[in-house]
């Protein structure tokens, strides 16, 4: 790419999204610090510093994907998809077992989550397939092929087990079919079949996963065990009130009622809610709304169907994480393992989400001229 084109692309970037993303990354670092704070600035665990590094790495991934032409990337969709599948298989057979799950691969110097990569590689493959010119979307074979592309990584992720991540693939795939133009009748049928299959899904769940769902409906059943996080998170959120208790002044995390290992990761929003109150929580929610809107804006103004589908997929994935995590924090949904994008502590996740958002930027900067 030459310098002139580089400058042009730079000017065409969606600064709204950049600001919102930057703000969220900043919020993340700030509140990971607070989540690890025990009353003494000298003893704060250095997670926030790592998160700053991950944010930096994410920024690089974002930039790379922006300047990379998404259409060139889509040309390699199938090999990339294959790599994703390979990594998933690798982690199942070779990966270390941590907390009864095989989700991580130890590469020199860094630990990565193949499921994050697989989310994007699957999205790429799905978008490439559905954007194919001349595809008859009313034909049932379209749905079946789409299902086939998605089900392989889905099953492999479920086997890790990582239900949360696997579950995100479902609405993403569905919305891609919807955005691609599959007739509503077909979509309706799919929803029906999905509902009927729910009981099957229940019995496929492991004990502790079923426990989580049961405790969601009745946390008093096990207040010291599975219900603990839900109750403590609600107390944290509720006691924040309108204006919150102030930065670093949240007692739930400082006193350890919100367990130390989940406060900076899955329950980071509880910390934000307790310390900044409704005002802060709603603000963060708005920032997420801005990011999702920007991604959809890219979809609406994309020059081609491929870009449209890619952006919709990223928006839906992003939205799913945000919605499920915050709902869980407030107590509206059972506990899952889904982290909050850009704010929760986590390296692979941050980098992969930034890469996904970079993908939408790639679509946006190459939008139609008018």
């Amino acid at each position: 790419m030459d310098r002139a084109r580089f400058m042009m692309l730079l000017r065409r970037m969606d600064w709204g999204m950049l600001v919102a993303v930057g703000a969220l990354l900043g919020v993340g670092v700030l509140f990971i610090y607070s989540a690890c704070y025990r009353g003494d600035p000298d003893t704060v665990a250095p997670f926030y510093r790592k998160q700053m590094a991950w944010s930096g790495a994410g920024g690089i991934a974002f930039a790379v994907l922006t300047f990379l032409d998404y259409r060139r990337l889509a040309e390699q969709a199938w090999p990339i998809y294959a790599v994703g599948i390979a990594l998933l298989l690798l982690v199942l057979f070779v990966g270390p077992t941590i907390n009864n799950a095989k989700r991580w691969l130890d590469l020199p110097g860094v630990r990565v989550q193949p499921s994050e990569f697989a989310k994007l590689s699957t999205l790429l493959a799905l978008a490439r397939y559905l954007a194919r010119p001349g595809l008859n979307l009313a034909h049932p074979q379209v749905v079946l092929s789409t299902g086939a592309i998605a089900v392989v990584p889905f099953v492999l992720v479920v086997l890790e087990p990582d239900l949360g991540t696997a579950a995100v693939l479902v609405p993403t795939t569905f919305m891609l079919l919807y955005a691609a133009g599959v007739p509503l009748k077909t979509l309706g049928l799919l929803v029906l079949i999905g509902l009927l299959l729910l009981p099957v899904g229940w019995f496929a769940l492991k004990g502790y996963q079923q426990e989580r769902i049961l405790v969601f409906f009745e946390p008093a059943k096990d207040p010291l065990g599975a219900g603990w996080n839900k109750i403590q998170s609600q107390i944290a959120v509720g006691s924040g009130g309108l204006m919150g208790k102030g930065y670093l002044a949240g007692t739930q995390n400082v006193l350890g009622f919100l367990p130390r290992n989940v406060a900076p990761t899955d329950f980071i929003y509880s910390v934000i809610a307790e310390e900044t109150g409704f005002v802060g929580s709603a603000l963060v929610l708005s920032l997420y709304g801005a990011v999702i809107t920007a991604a959809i804006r890219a979809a609406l103004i994309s020059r081609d169907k491929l870009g449209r589908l890619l952006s919709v997929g990223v928006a839906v994935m992003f939205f799913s994480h945000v919605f499920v995590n915050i709902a869980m924090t407030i107590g509206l949904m059972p506990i899952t393992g889904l982290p909050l994008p850009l704010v929760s502590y986590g390296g692979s996740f941050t980098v992969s989400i930034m890469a996904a958002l970079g993908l939408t930027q790639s679509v946006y900067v190459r939008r139609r001229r008018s």
Partner: protein
Amino acid sequence: MIRGGTVTSRGELLRIRILLLVMLAMLGLLAAALWRVQVAQGHEFEGDLKKQSVRRVRLPGQRGEILDRHGHVLAGNRPSYCIALYLEELRQGGRSNTVNSVMERLDGLGLLIGRDPELDREDVNDHILQTLPLPLIAWRDLDEAELARFAEHAASLSGVDVFVEAVRVYPEGRTACHVLGSVKFDSKIVNADQPFHYFYPETVGRAGLEKRFDEDLAGVAGGKSLLVDVSGYRHEDLAVREPEAGSDLLLALDLKAQRAAEQALQGVAGAAVIMDPRNGDVLALASAPTYDPNEFVPILTQATWDRLNSDPGHPMVHRAVAGTYAPGSVFKPVTAFAALENGKINAGTSFTCPGYFELGRARFNCWYRHGHGAQNVRGALRNSCNVFFYETGLLTGREMIAHMASAMGFGEKTGIDIDYEAPGRIPLRHQQQGWYSGDTCNFSIGQGPVTVTPLQMAVMASTIANGGNVPWPRLVLGIRAPGQDAFAPIPPRMVNRMNWSKRSLDLVQGGMRDVVMHRSGTGRLARIPGINVSGKTGTAEFGKKGNPKKRAWMIVYAPTEKPRYAIALVVDEGQGGGVDAAPRVQYILGQLFDVPLPESEVVHG
């Protein structure tokens, strides 16, 4: 390059717009839920948060002092310097690791200050389970040297600090121990209206005035709320409500009089009561043997408790108010008044004492075998002649004697402000069966079914001294609330007016004057130079047949003309009132009137 479709259908764009709307709407739903949880229901969750992380600790107030009438401190407080450990600064991961680090710290400190460790692992473990947010007291009552060593070497160590406790102290030692009572260190005072989670140990009265006036002395407890973390360790203090100090008690006791009374009872078991007959103030309330209330503080050891309980002298019994004794001859003035006031005898009535008295087939001996000869009532009092009073008693009858005794306060409690008072006993006025003339004879001389307490005797002496007003014995003059200068007074009062005629009074008072001042009065050993003293001795038999024992009594009031003091003294086991009680009373009088006396064998020997 891939080209994904050339025409962008409006339908697709519409679908995508709808999708955005749905997603934003769902985020709006989250915002509404946030509003409900944080703003609408925020209080509930704040309450839950407080419940799980806030603890309340009860803070006892400073205990009030007990003073004698001149302001001398009889019961007060002193600081006890303790070493306390703060486990939240010593904690390790896991309880047994924390216990280890605490034990290590204890060993190190013990070496530094020079004291053996008094806590073991179990104590530390119990503390963690039961009172974790409170400081753990490792040693109490550090002396100056130990404190200095601590300040020099250990003050900068983490998790350790000096902790000051208020400890009850009795500066006069055993003096007035029965009146003051004793205290204990209690660490769980149940208080239903203000539930606390934790309690600092507090001094609580367990006997005597300390117990009876415990509520006034204790003041009002304060409270402290503190934040604990999920493991229960103290995180920080939140708020303090200061306790209110207790009220002080001003007693009617006079320290000098009390000391005199207790010194007079040196070496024997017995009791002595000194009252002011003009208003009923109790200047001394002494009981022997005594105990040291300081031994109960800060902790009563099992050894001390065993020793006190197994002492054959029963030092814990407050004989002055709880001891019931046969009065013997000190009861005779009651019989005299009963006879005189009911017109059964008069100034001229005379009976002859040959040394014995015959009733039917029984023969009662007078204590003077040779007989006192003819006497009137005044002479009979001076001689303490049994025969005169047998005759008089039979004439008067049991009912009238009992009536007179009851009016003078016998047979019921005086209502003095202290626990365990005994009412004593006089034969019921309407008891008919099983009463013989011989019983009346015994009753007339204070034997048989009549028992009195030393306090009741002091009240009787006061009544005769002031001419017929039965006083209520006032032990506590007033109560002073903290921060006040003046005591809220407990006013003196009279219980009864006897309305004795002047004639009767002159005879009985005259007879009692002779008991001490006449050269052959039975109480002459109580004489002191320069002061006119009136009184009555008594020797009361008790105990089982074959093992007869005697109580030795004396009551006095002085000066005869305008009495300021009325005294009743009894020795549990003696030979006779004139021999055992009178010299002791003489000692007391010498102290009260500041008259120097040669050292008496009886009192100091």
